[in-house]
């Protein structure tokens, strides 16, 4: 299976990137290769598969067949263990100049087993301005065999100077039918659930996968979508905020637990954990410091995941009120939450379209606040207060 097949509903981006990989191979033979360049910027809305696209491209570059998907270089590149493919995830809430300095140093070194040294920076929008400026120098004076792949939600999220030094590939929000088909093909989910998950995730592939395969995730989403119906008084607003936080934490835990466990097991294996107890004990001892660091990074990743999952939950609520608005203006556009039509109609008749617009604005503001590091619970409490009484304005 070719490395490109995991990209869902991204025909255009796939064409650009596979053409680039082919030209990269051509350039090594000294032939003209206009499709390839040493710095890329991949953008796309959350869940559209930016990181997947970046690692697929990296695999295609290290693969002797430009992305067969089966050879060892392909598989290790995708798993993040290829020695010439560096995947950087700014895990704290931001990534500083010192980190970037080290990365740039590393990038300038020659590749070890393949012809390219590839640095994938996921979430380049989380780099600090100093870090981006440092990166800029590297992009201006590229080492001959280094390829930078930066990922960000949108071009507006990176400095214009970075944008102008990179070739831009933009992913689109995959259509619900693309997502549903992929869920059925890759996860063997039945058609009805695949269709529901595709619709409910509003184009977020990771979210769609979680909803399609994890019943608990579906239940938590259902709980969140009931919250607008339960905002009767001030106390219930505060209860709703706590409930949403609990649901998001549950979603983050479901994602983080297996990831943490796998990475800890990988680390122990790297320190020689094996068949007998003696080597296991030695691995445990030797890995002490590295394990501590890993657990620390897991903790900050979890914090970030909770924030991301809160944002997902807020997007679910955005979907809820978009549906309400559609019912209020009697548009015949399909509902995101078709299965809740009855409840949605009740909300729709009890409020004006202006109220709904204000509620959507309150949701947008809460998402901004949480992105700006406002204590999530507080931002959610303020949000619920405004959802209950849309005439209130953010202070």
């Amino acid at each position: 299976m070719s490395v490109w097949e995991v990209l869902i509903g991204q025909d255009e981006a796939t064409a650009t990137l596979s053409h680039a990989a082919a030209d990269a191979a051509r350039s090594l033979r000294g032939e003209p290769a206009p499709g390839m360049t040493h710095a890329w910027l991949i953008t796309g809305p959350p869940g559209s598969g930016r990181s997947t696209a970046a690692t697929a491209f990296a695999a295609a570059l290290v693969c002797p067949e430009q992305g067969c998907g089966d050879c060892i270089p392909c598989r290790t590149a995708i798993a993040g263990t290829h020695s010439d493919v560096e995947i950087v995830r700014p895990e704290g809430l931001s990534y500083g100049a010192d980190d970037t300095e080290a990365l740039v140093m590393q990038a300038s070194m020659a590749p070890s087993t393949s012809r390219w040294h590839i640095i994938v920076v996921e979430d380049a929008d989380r780099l600090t301005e100093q870090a981006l400026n440092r990166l800029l120098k590297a992009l201006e004076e590229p080492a001959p065999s280094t390829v930078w792949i930066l990922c960000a939600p949108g071009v507006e999220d990176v400095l214009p100077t970075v944008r102008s030094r990179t070739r831009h590939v933009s992913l689109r929000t995959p259509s619900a039918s693309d997502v549903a088909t992929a869920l059925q093909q890759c996860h063997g989910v039945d058609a009805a659930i695949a269709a529901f998950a595709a619709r409910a995730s509003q184009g977020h592939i990771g979210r769609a996968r979680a909803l399609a395969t994890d019943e608990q995730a579906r239940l938590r989403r259902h709980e969140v979508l009931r919250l607008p119906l339960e905002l009767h008084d001030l106390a219930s607003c505060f209860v709703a905020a706590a409930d949403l936080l609990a649901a998001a934490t549950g979603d983050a835990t479901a994602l983080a637990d297996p990831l943490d466990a796998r990475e800890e097991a990988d680390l122990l294996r790297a320190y020689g954990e094996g068949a007998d107890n003696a080597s296991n004990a030695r691995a445990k001892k030797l890995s002490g410091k590295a394990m501590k660091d890993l657990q620390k990074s897991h903790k900050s990743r979890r914090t970030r995941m909770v924030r991301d999952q809160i944002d997902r939950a807020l997007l679910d609520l955005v979907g809820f009120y978009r549906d309400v608005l559609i019912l209020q203006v009697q548009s015949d556009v399909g509902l995101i939450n078709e299965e809740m039509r009855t409840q949605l109609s009740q909300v729709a008749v009890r409020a004006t379209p202006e109220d709904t617009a204000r509620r959507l604005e309150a949701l947008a503001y809460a998402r901004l606040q949480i992105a700006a590091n406002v204590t999530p619970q507080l931002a959610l409490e303020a949000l619920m207060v405004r959802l209950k009484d849309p005439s209130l304005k953010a202070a």
Partner: protein
Amino acid sequence: MNAPWHADSMATPAPVTLVSGPEEFLAERAVRDVVLAARKVDPSIERRDVEGSAEGAAGLLREALSPTLFGDAAVVVVNGIEGLDDAGQTAVRTALADLPVGIYLVLVHPGGVKGKALLTDIRKSGAAEVDCATLKRGGDTIDFITREFARHGRKATREAINALYESLGQDLRMLAAAVSQVCADIDAEPIDAEHVHFYFDGVAEVSSFQIADAVWDRRPKDALRDLRWAMETGDRNRIGPSLVSGLSGGLRSLARYTGVSHSMSEGQIAGEIGVPPWKVKVIKRQAARWRPAQLAQATLLLAAADGATKGGVRHGESLDPVQKAAMLESLVVNIASPD
């Protein structure tokens, strides 16, 4: 026998102890040390206090000195012997000459010339003396802090001790409390300046809760005064986040309280809104001063302020330190005095 106040805790207390000098904290502790040492010998020992200036002190003292029916031992503390009248002084001299069995006598004198003759007689009688003279700034107080750590069996670096001194100055009671808290919180040895700062961060939290209580009590003047004080004495960078978190904790309980049924017991309410039972009374009192709409408005103010302390939600909203201070001040005033 004249021991300084920091003598190692004694194995058995002397029959008569003179605690002399104006440093109240040291004097109180010297008395307590005698009581504790006596209880080590006999855990059932009783403490009997007599005020020197009280009317009929002589009679009270004689009564305190007399053995009980069961011959139980006691520590008899005479506070302020300079205030004893002639009869009282005679009672003390009698006791010095012939101390009843099982009695430890502690005589407290705050220094100064009053009661000098009695003081001389006590010293002549061979009483142990604990000197509680006022500590001089600098060296004396630094020594005090060092020995406070030693009392807990701990060591601290010079920097840690200086940091405590710079923050709390001459207030021995505060210093002793701080050392005790740091020793309880920190396992590392020796304790260094960073650990001490950790303790003061804790102080910032405490003052934030105090400010929050004033806000939810609708006492804007007090809230503002405490906030100014906290900003002058504490870590300015921490006060914003810790104030917002203190305020939102209080708001959360108040908001949840608006939803509880009045037929619930305090224990049930505590469970329902997630606070310790003793807080329910406070919340009840505070809740009586608010309408839900005002609390809703406060929620929005608070969320916006949290964004502002963290560098702003939208571009160009970041505040300099003076603006931040002004923002926090207007926050507590605005919340505490709603329309």
